[in-house]
């Protein structure tokens, strides 16, 4: 036992002391925030980032004349020119495309110099459809104003009954938490699992393995390594959590301060603002119960401790189970390039669950497939974390956890049988047949 502690200590310290660990731990939160900000920025400004396009329109039907509304990116310019002639000249005249609306039944055509983007085609199509719709509605004698009022969007407020009490269902928050924890577990299983594998290969290649296992059992070395690397992962997580709390706390404070500074200005503007709509918006900014406050409120409603505990459990045991497999792979090869053939079957369940979780589990957290996936040890770490924010019966959670622990014990045992032989094999190309033979060797 004492020796396992020594091994854990060495594995842990040698990694935590590395520069790359420190840099990664302190940079990732900033990178993450930066990435989210960048994606948000691009999504917000995507219209501005697109090129403006000019489309020359030849309307032979006469039905769309001055009916196509310009958008931010597309300007329609009408011409009475002959189609055949315009075909040859529109590029020279500085147009990106030529839209030809024939009289009668013929298809409407969009002629472009380069392949038009999907969004261009979509925009032109929707402009045409809108124009056609408006024309037909008018022909049928329907007032467009009445129609718009009739088409008013309805929003529902989802509630769930828990312990006999009504609660806001927080579906979107559950969504976000499920996706985030699923993603984190997926990344960690791969990152730390690979680290264990690299560690095993390093010991094998540097030949220290023989010295070490003349002092400790291979099983002790393997477990020590797995636990040591796992603790590194845990340390990184805790630091990330602490940092994001500090960062978001800091951000909240800055925002509050700015809001306070801005208050007199807003009041000033209020005096000047004649428009009522503008005033309303300003008030919204000022009051704390805006959209941001609603998010804060919904986060308060989820059981934070429960979710974090579940997350840590599934992260740790998911990691244990996969890193045992990665350790067995590392022991079977002489260098990292040979690992490919063994890594794929190991990572397949993770990738499969991850992909399925984004599309299926998150939308159907209580379907039988989701329940099964959250029970099977190799898929449960991701699948269960997707389900937990939506509420999971306690007996399912207990069954899944017990199965995961049992799965880990079995995997560690099986991996250790391959590991103890593999670490002493050099220059022998390991095949699956070979691995089974190693597994069968008696002690």
């Amino acid at each position, binding site marked *: 036992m004492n020796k396992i502690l*020594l091994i854990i200590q060495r594995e842990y310290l040698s990694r935590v002391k590395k520069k790359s660990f420190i840099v990664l731990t302190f940079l990732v939160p900033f990178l993450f925030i930066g990435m989210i900000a960048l994606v948000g920025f691009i999504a917000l400004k995507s219209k501005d980032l697109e090129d403006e396009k000019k489309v020359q329109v030849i309307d032979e039907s006469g039905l769309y004349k001055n009916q196509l509304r310009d958008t931010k990116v597309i300007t329609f310019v009408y011409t009475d020119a002959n189609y055949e002639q315009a075909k040859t000249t529109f590029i020279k005249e500085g147009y990106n495309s030529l839209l030809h609306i024939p009289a009668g039944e013929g298809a409407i055509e969009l002629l472009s110099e380069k392949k038009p983007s999907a969004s261009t085609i979509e925009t032109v199509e929707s402009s045409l459809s809108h124009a056609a719709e408006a024309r037909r509605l008018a022909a049928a004698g329907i007032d467009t104003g009445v129609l718009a009022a009739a088409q008013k969007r309805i929003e529902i407020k989802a509630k769930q009954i828990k312990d006999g009490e009504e609660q806001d269902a927080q579906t979107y928050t559950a969504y976000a938490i499920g996706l985030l924890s699923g993603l984190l577990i997926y990344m960690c299983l791969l990152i730390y699992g690979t680290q264990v594998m690299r560690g095993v290969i390093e010991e094998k290649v540097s030949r220290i393995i023989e010295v070490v296992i*003349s002092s400790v059992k291979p099983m002790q070395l393997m477990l020590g390594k797995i636990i040591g690397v796992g603790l590194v992962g845990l340390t990184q997580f805790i630091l990330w959590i602490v940092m994001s709390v500090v960062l978001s706390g800091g951000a909240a404070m800055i925002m509050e301060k700015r809001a306070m500074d801005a208050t007199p200005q807003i009041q000033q503007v209020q005096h000047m603002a004649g428009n009522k709509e503008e005033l309303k918006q300003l008030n919204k900014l000022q009051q704390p119960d805006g959209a941001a406050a609603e998010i804060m409120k919904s986060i308060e409603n989820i059981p934070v401790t429960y979710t974090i505990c579940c997350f840590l459990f599934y992260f740790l045991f998911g990691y244990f189970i996969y890193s045992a497999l990665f350790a067995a792979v590392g022991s079977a090869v002489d260098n990292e390039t040979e690992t490919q053939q063994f890594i794929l079957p190991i990572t397949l369940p993770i990738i499969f669950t991850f992909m399925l979780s984004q599309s299926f589990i998150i939308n159907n957290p209580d379907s039988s497939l989701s329940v099964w996936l959250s029970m099977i040890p190799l898929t449960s770490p991701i699948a269960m974390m997707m389900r937990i924010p939506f509420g999971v019966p306690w007996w399912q959670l207990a069954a899944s956890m017990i199965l995961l622990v049992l799965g880990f014990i079995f995997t560690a045992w099986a991996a250790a049988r391959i590991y103890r032989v593999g670490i002493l094999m050099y220059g022998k190309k390991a095949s699956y047949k070979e691995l089974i033979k190693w597994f069968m060797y008696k002690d």
Partner: protein
Amino acid sequence: MISIQNIVKQYAGHRALSDVSMDIKKGQVFGLLGPNGAGKTSLIRILNLITAPDGGSITFDGEPLTRKHIERIGYMPEERGLYKKMEIGEQVLYLAQLKGIERREALRRAKMWFEKLEIQAWWHKKIEDLSKGMQQKAQFVATVLHEPELLILDEPFSGFDPVNADIIKNEILELNRKGTTIIFSTHRMESVEELCDSIALLNLSKKILDGGVKQIKNSYRNGTYMLEYEGNANWDLSGAPFEVLSTETLEETNRIKLKMKPGQPQNEALHYVLPKVSVRHFEEVVPTMNEIFISTVNKQVVS
């Protein structure tokens, strides 16, 4: 100290050790000899409990060898290895602690050894920044730091330059004088004669020869002598009590290799030649371990 009885080790496709038995006594320097692939490393791994034999038994001081003995054994594998990114001082301490030595005690001993081998200035250097000789010295320190009663060294001198090999050799002999039993494997026979008390010769998974070095050499004596003399090379040898095996002409002298006829003591040869030539040198030709090794191995291949 160690008694090996009928050890069998079978790998898929080939047999590494078949029915090998030998005894290593306390305080001996025991050489495990054999060409590459003879099974030396397999046997050494079994002695270190790294792998288990398929048959046979080993006792350590009369008790069956188990994990509890592992802390009394020091092992330096043929393929040396240390963590590349770890400081050597820290590394030596780590390995000693794995052998059950307390950190403070390990530190004290390590400091002493580092000074003795003149590598103390490199305590905080990483292995990858050290020369090969330096790495080997650190490895040696790591092997002996827990003061094992039995030291098992697989090809200890390979990879050392002559100067460092000599330093390590002297350290090994000094440990032996203090009572450490030493087993080392090698295929370099010249190191055997000066170091070993006893040897065992392995070839093709079998033990083909073992015993004390002196006894083995004596049993290979066959009455061959070398005579070096000044004077005429062509002299009459009729009636000599020996046969001439070969002759050789050197700058000032001649040399012949001779074999005494059955029942003739070697002094008879001197009686015979003294009146005829001026003798410079006369000595018995004892086969070197190398010759014994080669002839034994070849005999086994032929038979």
